[in-house]
């Protein structure tokens, strides 16, 4: 009698657990198929103008894989993006800098998706091809004002940079330890403007993201290290910064769609997208 009862209980338990396992298996399978086919909706992101290329590349590639998903990146500036994230108007806030303590305290999580290098550029006529970090700092703080002091021609240095709240500028100044000591001759409000001004002004020097570098200007070697992807990933190039796709709370707490997006970013395909626009992978 007693024995019978135990057997019965065991049988019931076994049956229950099998059914549960079966259900679990089923739901797993349906999740997977949902991810590859039925994924639809919109992911909203806003933030850094420096991350325009990256965000657009991801939006395009993700949309190609999941045609029913649209990503709408806006380029309002790092801080504006994080503010929108905090206010809940976007799901992802793009920032081309590390987050401040205040921002982290507000619950924003810093997901570094790529690393960007900052190239130091001069006009094509300039024959200076190499600078040290100290020389660069001296140029930007106004201690050195003529290219002849750096082994170049007798030409005045026109110091060009970005406006005070730019992510590129804060990264540049921070990395050189010259925060708020810079004496800019021109403060421009976009990467493209810096590129154009340096290209057209004799004796000009400026800084831009590595990924927008083109052949209208020369990039100088820094401490003998060329501004290339390998050198930035290996850490031997002095000027680099993180590209953050911030979320409110951990990625695992996000909506399925956003989680799927980050899974894609970390997948082999996503990493290829990053590599293709000349950014460096983190780690």
């Amino acid at each position, binding site marked *: 009698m007693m024995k019978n009862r135990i057997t019965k209980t065991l049988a019931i338990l076994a049956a229950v657990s099998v059914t549960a396992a079966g259900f679990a298996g089923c739901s797993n399978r349906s999740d997977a198929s949902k991810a590859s086919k039925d994924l639809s909706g919109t992911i909203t992101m806003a933030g850094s103008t420096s991350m325009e290329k990256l965000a657009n590349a991801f939006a395009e590639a993700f949309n190609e894989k999941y045609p029913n998903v649209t990503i709408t990146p806006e380029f309002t500036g790092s801080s504006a993006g994080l*503010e929108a994230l905090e206010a809940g108007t976007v799901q992802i806030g793009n920032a081309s800098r590390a987050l401040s303590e205040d921002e982290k305290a507000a619950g924003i999580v810093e997901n570094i998706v790529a690393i960007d290098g900052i190239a130091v550029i001069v006009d094509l006529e300039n024959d200076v091809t190499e600078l040290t970090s100290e020389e660069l700092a001296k140029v930007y703080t106004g201690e050195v004002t003529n290219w002849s002091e750096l082994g170049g021609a007798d030409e005045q240095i026109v110091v060009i940079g970005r406006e*005070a709240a730019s992510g590129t500028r804060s990264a540049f100044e921070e990395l050189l330890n010259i925060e708020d000591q810079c004496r800019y*001759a*021109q*403060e421009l409000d976009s990467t493209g403007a810096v590129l154009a001004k340096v290209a057209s*002004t004799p004796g000009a020097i400026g800084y831009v993201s590595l990924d927008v570098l083109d052949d209208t200007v020369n990039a100088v070697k820094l401490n003998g290290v060329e501004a290339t992807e390998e050198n930035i990933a290996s850490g031997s190039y002095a000027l680099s910064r993180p590209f953050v796709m911030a979320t409110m709370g951990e990625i695992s707490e996000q909506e399925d769609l956003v989680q799927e997006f980050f899974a894609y970013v970390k997948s082999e395909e996503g990493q290829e997208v990053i590599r293709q626009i000349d950014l460096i992978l983190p780690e």
Partner: protein
Amino acid sequence: MGKQKSAVEFTAQVIFLLCAATAIAAVCSITFYMFFKGTPALARVGAGELLFGTVWQPTAAEPSFGIFSIILTSVVGTALAIVLGVPVGILTAVFLTEVANKKLAKIVQPAVELLAAIPSVIYGLLGLMLLNPFIYKLEKMIFADSKTHQFTGGANLISAVIVLAIMILPTVITISTSSLQAVPEQIKAASFALGATKIQTIFKVVLPAARSGIMTGVVLGIGRAIGEAMAINLVAGGSVNLPLPFHSVRFLTTQLVSEMSYAEGLHRQVLFTVGLVLFLFIMAINFVLAWMKKKGAQENG
């Protein structure tokens, strides 16, 4: 029938009222919003420090929000543009109305109107491509031996002032022309009859008679110059400095254009205060304009 008509009348009146209310609502809400957003920073930073401080380091570890140089740049830049542009504008208007033969006037008049229609960013672009390199050459010549001058590459106050001076020309010319045309023929005839030459008549009789209209043009020009952002953003250099001719400078407008997108926290609030200061300047100019129109009407009446 009569009832139907009155219903139509009534509906039309409501529609008119609503349209008028839109404009008033817009002005009121903008004014309210500017004060609402612009005043907190005044309290947090301190009005004196904010308005009369000369150090602008919004992102430093110990930020400093002095916008005095920026206010001064807008005032000085606008004043210089007026000094350069107004004489040219008024003399062009005199030429159009008094001196030029009709054929020539028919060529100049549309050219002036076209000048007014060109988008400001085009002025900026031309300034960037043509004016900046030229000014840089001048700068290199003038400061060839200077050890302390910071070379701006031609993007400085002078470039901005020249661009602004050209941009206010159409406003000054158009309004001056119409007020010169309004001067009664009898006055001129009387002047000629007294034996005055044409030039004497223009400067001693016609221009004084058209004075209030011309002043209106000048004030509108000031309004245009102080509110311009796009063009000077491209040519002024954009560093915060005292407004000396070969300094890279930043205006109230370009301050907003260049930093709003990236600013956060108190920095952002201060930018709203900058907007408020600009708004107050524009309001002041409009009050002056209204006062002058009233005075002009009294004189003519």
